[in-house]
């Protein structure tokens, strides 16, 4: 019984301790010149889909859930957001070469078509981010149109 007591005390201490570890928050007030929406005329439906379903991890501005303030959730989110932004950052779309923009658009289309994105771990909590079949169709059609025009 003593062991159990020690283990649980250690656990609580660690859990409290990690709350003091700072994580950087992905938030920025800068209106990005290189954002895909500034650069191209994105139809409203496509734009709002991007904002609700993609921008949390693929832009410099995350709308954080309440539990982000609690570790280890914030680490988990921080890592996901970093990875997401490395792969594709809508705020910095204009800094990509047109070759890379095309590649990114193509990947957006295929990831959505395959249901790989948005991540199911994300839509589980963010129900509003889930894409309906018609959302998918509209976004994919727009993406394909953009690829041909670039």
């Amino acid at each position, binding site marked *: 019984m003593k062991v159990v007591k020690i283990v649980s005390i250690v656990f609580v201490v660690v859990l409290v301790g990690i709350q003091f570890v700072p994580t950087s928050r992905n938030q920025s007030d800068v209106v990005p010149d290189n954002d895909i929406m500034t650069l191209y005329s994105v139809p409203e439906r496509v734009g709002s889909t991007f904002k609700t379903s993609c921008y949390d991890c693929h832009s410099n501005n995350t709308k954080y859930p309440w539990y982000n303030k609690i570790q280890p959730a914030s680490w988990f989110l921080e890592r996901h957001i970093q990875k997401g932004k490395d792969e594709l950052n809508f705020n910095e779309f204009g800094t990509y*070469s047109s*070759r*890379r923009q*095309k*590649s990114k658009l*193509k*990947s957006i289309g*295929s990831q959505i078509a395959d249901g790989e994105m948005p991540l199911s771990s994300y839509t589980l909590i963010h129900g509003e981010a889930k894409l309906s079949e018609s959302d998918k169709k509209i976004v994919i059609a727009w993406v394909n149109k953009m690829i041909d025009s670039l």
Partner: protein
Amino acid sequence: MVTITATSCKDTKKEKEHNNEDGHHSEMESGEDQHEEGMDMHDDATMDSSHDMMGNDQNASKSAALVANYLDLKNALVADDKNAAAKAGGKMVSSFNSFDMSSFTSEDQDELKDIIEDAKEHAEHIEKSPIDHQREHFDVLSKDMIDLIAITGTDKKLYQDFCPMYNNKKGAQWLSATEEIKNPYYGSKMKSCGSVQKEIN
């Protein structure tokens, strides 16, 4: 130096009968007439550097490692071998990293930087993706390689092939070291679908 033969998938069937020494050809969907896997081994692996006509030997040889890795990747996809494709993708990433563009003009360097930045990302994805994703990335990677070789030249004889069906019938290109069509986008499902668009060197 460069001959263009634009043909659709159907048109090539007739032509192919003459071209293939064994006179075999298969219907696209049937896949009944599969060429032996062993064929892959000798053809793309054989170096044929006698066709060096691009002028700038030094620059052409810079693309050699990339072309070799690319052909390994292509052969792995023809053979439906995800693991071999991932390995070749990894090799391409390091070849892109060590690509020395110092001898190119600054204009070419800018273009090469864009190409390599994009292509490297596709190679990275090929390293860690299931085969259908590998093929999606291979499609764009192939375009990048074609553009890269247009700048660097190559000391190999290459065929630029075209599969009209892939990518929702938008079609997709690839490079091969052999004239015979072996489709990396469909592998064993439709191995002989496609046609030679262009000969390089």
